[in-house]
């Protein structure tokens, strides 16, 4: 038995003993997602129990170093853990922009003090982070951002406005791009961290076409940010921003996977439309569309596995997250279009209890942002063309 086999056996036994049955059920709604944070209110005792058990082993961030709250696992061990969790359909114990975005950037660019200060709190789900990137006049052209950080001696004075700040109204801290120099576009940006409870920070949720408000406008009015909270050098924030965007794209691409367990598209289509006497979906054209979609979805699932394996081994092209983001988000939009087609008029109900207050149409509308947020599909195609295919500009 190899060490990896032994790790798999031990992991399986530990998960069996420690993952509560309720945490092996599919998510019923967004409320079931554990985001942690100062204002974390567990949706069930089992959710808290699962978070604490995993965090105690460092397995909310299994491949981070142990001293920063991680599990210190190798890429191969991390993959085994992921496979064993998938095998029992275990929910993710903690979802967080701290894990998927800020953490990797701090591991690469943070000072030792910043890492020790922030990473363990992310790993334990104690602090919930939001991302201050886009501005009203800086969308796809992100580097044209104008939120200013004036030098105030040992601190900056931050003024300006961010937009599309996911869950800003629920977050404890923000990682934020600010302009510290007007002399250069990309070369005048710095990357800073601050508490959302600071004086001068306010948020306003934006009502979206889904009827929900996952995004906010975020305003900064003379916010004092200690210079010690700047990650990497002054005016070098764009390097951090781009590195972090790679991880954000990787995370968003995961939406193309559609989760583990029973396939909701297929189950939904069978429930609404039914099977004919041969056991085929009774709408043959929709059946064909779903089947061809499933080919791409399953192929993309293999692509995600390959991408993660190559990334961990340092073999992935640095711009490959753009391909993953592009493909995964377009796929997710296709999936929800098919779910709506399969659902018929049931999938149109917006408020009824039967529809779980319109969970399906609201989710469908939410997916339309997938190919906009984190860099539009068109921006990703530009990046692939220039950096991977090396086409001329």
């Amino acid at each position, binding site marked *: 038995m190899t060490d990896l086999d032994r790790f798999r056996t031990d992991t399986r036994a530990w998960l069996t003993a420690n993952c509560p049955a309720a945490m092996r059920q599919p998510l019923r709604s967004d409320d079931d997602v554990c985001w942690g944070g100062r204002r974390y209110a567990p949706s069930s005792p089992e959710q808290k129990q699962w978070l604490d058990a995993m965090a105690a082993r460092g397995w909310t961030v299994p491949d981070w170093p142990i001293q920063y709250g991680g599990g210190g696992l190798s890429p191969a061990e991390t993959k085994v853990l992921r496979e064993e969790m998938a095998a029992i359909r275990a929910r993710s114990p903690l979802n967080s922009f701290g894990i998927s975005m800020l953490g990797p950037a701090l591991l690469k660019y943070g000072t030792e003090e910043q890492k020790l200060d922030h990473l363990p709190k992310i790993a334990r789900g104690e602090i919930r982070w939001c991302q201050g990137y886009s501005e009203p006049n800086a969308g796809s052209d992100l580097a044209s951002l104008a939120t200013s950080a004036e030098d105030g001696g040992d601190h900056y004075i931050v003024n300006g406005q961010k937009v599309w700040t996911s869950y800003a109204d629920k977050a404890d801290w923000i990682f934020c791009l600010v302009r510290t120099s007007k002399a250069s576009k990309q070369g005048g940006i710095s990357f800073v961290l601050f508490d959302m409870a600071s004086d001068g920070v306010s948020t306003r949720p934006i009502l979206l076409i889904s009827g929900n408000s996952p995004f906010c406008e975020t305003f900064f009015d003379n916010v004092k940010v200690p210079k010690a909270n700047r990650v990497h050098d002054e005016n070098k924030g764009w390097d951090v921003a781009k590195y972090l965007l790679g991880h954000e794209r990787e995370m968003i691409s995961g939406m193309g996977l559609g989760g583990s367990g029973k396939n909701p598209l297929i189950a939904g289509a069978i429930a609404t439309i039914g099977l004919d006497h041969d056991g085929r979906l009774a709408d043959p054209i929709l059946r064909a569309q779903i089947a061809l979609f499933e080919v791409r979805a399953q192929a993309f699932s*293999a692509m995600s596995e390959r991408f993660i394996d190559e990334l961990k081994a340092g073999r992935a092209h640095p711009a490959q997250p753009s391909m993953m983001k592009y*493909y995964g988000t377009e796929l997710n939009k296709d999936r929800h279009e098919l779910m709506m087609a399969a659902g018929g008029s049931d999938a149109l109900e917006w408020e009824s209890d039967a529809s779980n207050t319109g969970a399906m149409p609201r989710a469908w509308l939410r997916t339309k942002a997938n190919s906009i947020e984190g860099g539009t599909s068109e921006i990703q195609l530009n990046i692939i063309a220039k950096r991977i295919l090396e086409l*001329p500009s």
Partner: protein
Amino acid sequence: MPLYLDDDQTALQDTIRDFIADAAPVSHLRALRDADDPAGFSRDLWKRFADMGFTGILIDEAAGGLGLGHVEAGVVLEEIGRNLSPSPFLTTAVAAVEALRGSAQADRWFSRILAGETVAALAIDEAAKHRDRIELTATRSGNGFRLTGAKRFVTHGYVADLLIVAARTAGSEADRDGITLFAIPRDAANLTITPARLADSSIAAHLAFEGVDVDADAVIGEVDAGRAPLDRLLRAGRTGASAELLGVGGGAMDMTMGYLKQRKQFGQAIGSYQALQHRAAHLYSEMEVARAAVLKAQQLLDADSNRADEAVLVAKAMSGMATTLSVNESVQMHGGIGMTDEYDVGFYMKRARVLTELWGDPNFHADRLAIAAGY
């Protein structure tokens, strides 16, 4: 196991890449076509494959082969695809070997395949579209069987020494079981073989069995139990064809990226135009996803996983769709020159069409995937 080629597989890729690019580049295909070569491939090249051990890539080391797996066979096939090299490798070293594996016939044929003396052809399809139905009958007659019926789309069927024929020995036409595989020589009496050159200038054959008598020892495996070796043959063949498709799609894409950088219009390289950049980037994405799907199927086959069947369906469908996109985009982005016979990109389009159709097209495989998922 990580989903990328390991060091040994990468080393094999380097070897085979250089060998095939040197021995059988696209100009080799063009020369065979222009000479109207009756075999459609070079026997000399096949012998060189044997000398390097590649014909025995899937044959166990104990039997004199390399004892490697579907990942390695795919590495060879991708380079065959990239160079459009006409070769009986897929039918002989991959599909036929899988059909024969473990049967009493194996010893006899494996040594010839290892020596590069045998070319095998698979006689499975009976209709213009691949399907599971086997209607050609083999009825007991004397010491053996008498075969009656027809086969088509038998690649290399006109020159093969070994024909592997799927015949019905029990049950009715639509049954999955009741099938027996036979190993039949090309010169059997009452067997008429008519060659048919295909769009990609490969040569397939129509086979007419008008009471072909064979001895009982022509049976591969057990009578009525041919479904298992046939499935094995098809899984390996489809996975191999998928790898070859990746090479075809990748080769066309590489040519096209080169062209986009070099061809100038309106005073600049056409690859600087966003309309073409976005099409190229989308194509790249589809090919990457297809590559992952194919490697996944190969690894699961090598691991003898119960998830391999589904992965093979996905691989064949996805590689067919992505490569079809690749060759279509390639001709379009080349513009007029892509339509000329003199330029190679059209060869890629033709080979892609044949491989996409072989042993089931993307629609066939998507349908099977749906059935497996219960809808």
